[in-house]
């Protein structure tokens, strides 16, 4: 299948601390890629490069190429605002806007950049997004309640709906379940599987069972390097690199 991302020699620094070292990676369209590795190995830093989220971090700098459909988005000439509409993001902590209702939380992205939609179009888009995020049935009767009145797991799905509403092609998720209970986690995992029909998903996770269940490919990072990336079946049964094996068998540091 065609690759949506091709990453070449990506290096990243916070000040003079090099956090990403020569990452090369290909991400296939409509695949689910899990990014794994011990804490501090650069997983978050890596996926935040893919939507240029570091632009506002003082002192961060990167080199190399990140081709999104053959355009190098790491280049200064690419407008990060347009890029982020194509590459959405879900964060570790659910972060709905506190003074917005459920409806407004989902609709907020559709009103950015001076875009205007009729009330009806907006309502359709909100329903569609909530449906995709498997939240519609739970909130359809109280769309005007504050987004933060929902449970943690519902809030996270609300944030997924909010990201989906702007119709991105890629969804980046940084440990989307780490703040959630097992039931909510299972719901989000199921959701990721469904979404992968239409979206390319890159998800950071510490949970190996989860990675094995949801992903097509797994990338294993260590100290800022991509040690190996392969089909998830291969990584968990027969990894090529000894360090990957040590990590997944729990013998690692």
């Amino acid at each position: 299948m065609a690759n949506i991302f091709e990453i070449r020699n990506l290096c990243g620094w916070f000040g003079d601390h090099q956090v990403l070292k020569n990452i090369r990676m290909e991400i296939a369209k409509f695949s689910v890629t899990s990014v794994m590795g011990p804490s501090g190995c650069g997983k978050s830093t890596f996926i935040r490069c893919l939507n240029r989220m570091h632009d506002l971090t003082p002192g961060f700098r990167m080199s190399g190429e990140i081709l999104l459909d053959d355009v190098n988005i790491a280049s200064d000439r690419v407008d990060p605002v347009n890029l982020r509409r194509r590459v959405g993001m879900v964060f570790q902590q659910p972060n709905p806007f506190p003074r917005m209702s459920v409806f407004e939380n989902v609709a907020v992205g559709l009103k950015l950049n001076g875009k205007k939609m009729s009330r009806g179009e907006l309502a359709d888009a909100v329903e569609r997004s909530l449906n995709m995020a498997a939240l519609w049935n739970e909130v359809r009767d109280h769309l005007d309640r504050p987004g933060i009145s929902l449970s943690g797991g519902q809030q996270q799905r609300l944030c997924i709906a909010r990201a989906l509403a702007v119709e991105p092609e890629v969804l980046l998720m940084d440990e989307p379940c780490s703040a959630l209970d097992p039931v909510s986690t299972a719901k989000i995992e199921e959701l990721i599987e469904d979404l992968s029909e239409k979206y390319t998903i890159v998800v950071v996770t510490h949970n190996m069972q989860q990675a094995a269940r949801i992903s097509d490919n797994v990338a294993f990072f260590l100290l800022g390097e991509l040690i190996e990336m392969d089909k998830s079946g291969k990584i968990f049964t027969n990894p090529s690199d000894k360090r990957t094996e040590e990590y997944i068998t729990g013998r690692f540091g």
Partner: protein
Amino acid sequence: MVRNTGRNPKDKLFEGASAFFAFAVLALTALLFVVLLRESMQAIRDFGASFLYSRTWDPVVDQYGALPFIYGTLVSSFLAILMAVPLSLGAAIFINDFAPPWLKNPVAFLAELLAAIPSVIFGLWGIFVLVPLLRDGFMKPVSKYLGWIPLFEGPAYGPSVLAASVLLAIMIVPFILSVSREVLATVPQRQKEAVLSLGGTRWEMIRIVVGQHCIPGIFGATVLGLGRALGETMAVTMVIGNRPEIFYSFFQQGYSMAAVIANEFAEAGGLQLSSLILIGLLLFLVTFVVNLASQWMLSRMVKNASRGI
């Protein structure tokens, strides 16, 4: 089991001392109120409520009404707020979110240094710099072309309600700015990133997070600035013109509550003195209420921030 029977005697002493000082502050405030009330009794008895709406201030016939002063204080303070809030908020946003790191601290430092300048210096600067500048650069051209608008009517003398308001605005900017910066800094990073991740521009990011998190705090900062502006004496006295009239043009001269006390207190006696003290009492009550309101609003915001709202 260890029982906490006797506390450390030093602790006890410290507790007692702080309780004493806290009580002393309350007692002083109450005493101030009582003294103001007693000394203004004569004016209250003679004029009653008409003191609030009478426009005559005439020592010759011993008739006193505070309306021109109340009006002048309120209008100049509100005008000052109207100018200072957008300026401070813009500066706070610039310093927090846009200024390059090397510019950040110097700008913030200079802005807050303004707060330490004695108000008589502001007054002098007002007389020698601001008033001529406003007169020649703004009032004259405006009254020439827009003089038919009542707000800009009248000759452009210089000392005026406008000059007082601009000067007040400059004086309260540091306070509103520093509170606004604190308020903006309470916005969680993940909320800003949420807007960016949806394809928002930096400007949209600020608009949304300010709307979501900062409105009560900015309101508190505004009221704090209002409290300052209402009570400011020296600088206003020096540029407002000191004419006890109900003006309708910003180019006219006015008077303020604090200014009339400062100007007339030394030579006043009898009913005039009592009337001045009554103005003082009114000013005390207004600033007290305004400051209380701002404290309450800011503390509520801090509470909300700690709950992640």
